């Protein structure tokens, strides 16, 4: 083996390859330039492949790229050696280099074939783009579904909140109604007994006693007014409903509102051109509007604005009182309809105004909505079912 290698590498009896070309310069230099170009190109390719594999470690079968690099490096070396053998007859070394090249080439070729089916199964860029687009669409769909779910869950939470609120108000209403009922009995006893005393004392008692009695009777009257408002919240107030034009009532009440608000604030009426027919107890409706206007006035510091608005939407008439006053934080808004809940100073408000509005709307088959932002103002809407026409069908 050693002898064979020695014999192979021994170039003593050989002549350089240039002799075969009879040292003709055009042949010699054309070969040199061609082999040099091929060799340099071949050497640059593994560098480029190396950079590619280094930058993109995720590429599949990168060992195959290393095989290509080795194979092309070996090919380049054979071309460089072809230049060398033009002047130096080292054909043995050239043969060894060719053997190495052959080995690398065969190994690469063998490894390459099994890869072909796998390479064919790789998605093309357009397939990838399509898959990507599909994926993006799916993500978008999922995001939208998620958004819808969030909205629904928020809506549900709001509905549950409203249900809780209305259940609470219902419970308070029953309690308030019960209390008012009992008080009405007690007030009957007080009223009628005092009236009886008054009659019996007529012409006998002195002015002081008569004054005391009349004060007591006055207090009983005021107490009766409170129980009546409690019943209004509890929806036990007797209503005398008829068909009315809410817009007309509002415009007729104009002077009353101006009176209630006085000159500190601006009152604006925002009423539609056509009628707003509703089936309501006019007195209670006026009370509700007045209560809302007084609340709005009390929410305004000075130089505020109150808008009294009516409009039709779908099957409903919206009657709104809007102010640009202090507004309410959520915890106040949540309790605003509870009877005796007030944020006004002691003696300023009974806490029954909004309760009356709530009771009136409920008993009239409608509802109430409050929107409020602290620092920006409050809008209370009474939403009433619209009736078809203003004139009522005449009862027999």
């Amino acid at each position, binding site marked *: 083996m050693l002898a064979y290698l020695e014999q192979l590498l021994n170039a003593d009896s050989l002549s350089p390859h240039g002799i075969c070309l009879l040292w003709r310069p055009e042949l010699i230099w054309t070969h040199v330039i061609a082999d040099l170009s091929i060799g340099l190109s071949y050497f640059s390719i593994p560098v480029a492949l190396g950079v590619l594999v280094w930058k993109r470690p995720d590429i599949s079968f990168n060992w195959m790229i290393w095989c290509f690099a080795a194979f092309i490096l070996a090919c380049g070396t054979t071309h460089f050696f072809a230049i060398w053998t033009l002047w130096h007859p080292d054909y043995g070394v050239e043969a060894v280099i060719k053997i190495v090249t052959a080995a690398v080439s065969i190994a690469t070729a063998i490894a390459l074939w099994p890869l072909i089916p796998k390479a064919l199964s790789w998605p093309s860029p357009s397939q990838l783009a399509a898959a990507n687009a599909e994926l993006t669409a799916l993500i978008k769909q999922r995001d939208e579904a998620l958004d819808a779910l969030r909205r629904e869950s928020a809506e549900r939470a709001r509905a549950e909140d409203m249900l809780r609120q209305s259940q609470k108000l219902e419970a308070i209403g029953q309690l308030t109604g019960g209390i008012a009922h009992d008080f009405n009995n007690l007030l009957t006893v007080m009223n*009628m007994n005092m009236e009886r005393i008054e009659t019996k004392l007529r012409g006998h008692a002195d002015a002081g006693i008569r004054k005391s009695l009349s004060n007591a009777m006055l207090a009983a009257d005021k107490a009766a007014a409170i129980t009546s408002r409690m019943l209004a919240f509890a929806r*036990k107030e007797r209503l005398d409903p008829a068909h009315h034009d809410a817009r007309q009532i509002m415009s007729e009440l104009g002077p009353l509102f101006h009176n209630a608000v006085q000159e500190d604030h601006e009152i604006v009426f925002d009423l539609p051109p056509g009628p707003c027919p509703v089936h309501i107890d006019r007195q209670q409706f006026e009370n509700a509007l007045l209560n809302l206007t007084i609340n709005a006035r009390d929410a305004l510091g000075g130089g505020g604005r109150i808008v009294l608005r009516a409009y039709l939407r779908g099957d409903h008439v919206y009657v709104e009182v809007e102010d640009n006053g202090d507004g309410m934080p959520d915890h106040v808004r949540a309790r605003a309809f509870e009877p005796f809940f007030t944020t006004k100073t002691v003696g300023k408000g009974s806490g029954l105004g909004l309760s009356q509005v709530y009771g009136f709307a409920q008993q009239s088959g409608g509802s109430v909505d409050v929107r409020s932002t602290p620092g920006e103002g409050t809008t209370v809407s009474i939403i009433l079912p619209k009736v078809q026409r203003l004139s009522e069908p005449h009862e027999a």
Partner: protein
Amino acid sequence: MKSAKKSRQTVLVVEDEELVREIVIWAFEDLGFEARGAATGDEAALMLAEAPVDLLFTDIRMPGRLDGWTLAEKMRETWSGLPVIYASGYSSEPPRQVPNSIFLEKPLATQALREALIKLDLLDA
């Protein structure tokens, strides 16, 4: 004179609250009526069966089987056209259209009672 038609008109006051019943009886007496009281509808029905009256004054919500409406209805089966004054502390109760009757809301006042009697033609204006 209408009140002269009969020397003394009679009324049955049906009311479960004793203090209310008592003052209403006194008020009727002050107006010249002969008044009796019952605490429940059932008691009132028994009393009326024994001695009829010219006027029934009844609370609407009462303990027992008979509320004010039912009591008056039953009594009118026997004495059709019996005048009735209904009284209720829950003013929401829709006043039923009963002929020859008046619906009063509590708290009651003597003046309202007097006006009701005049309307029912049981008292001279």
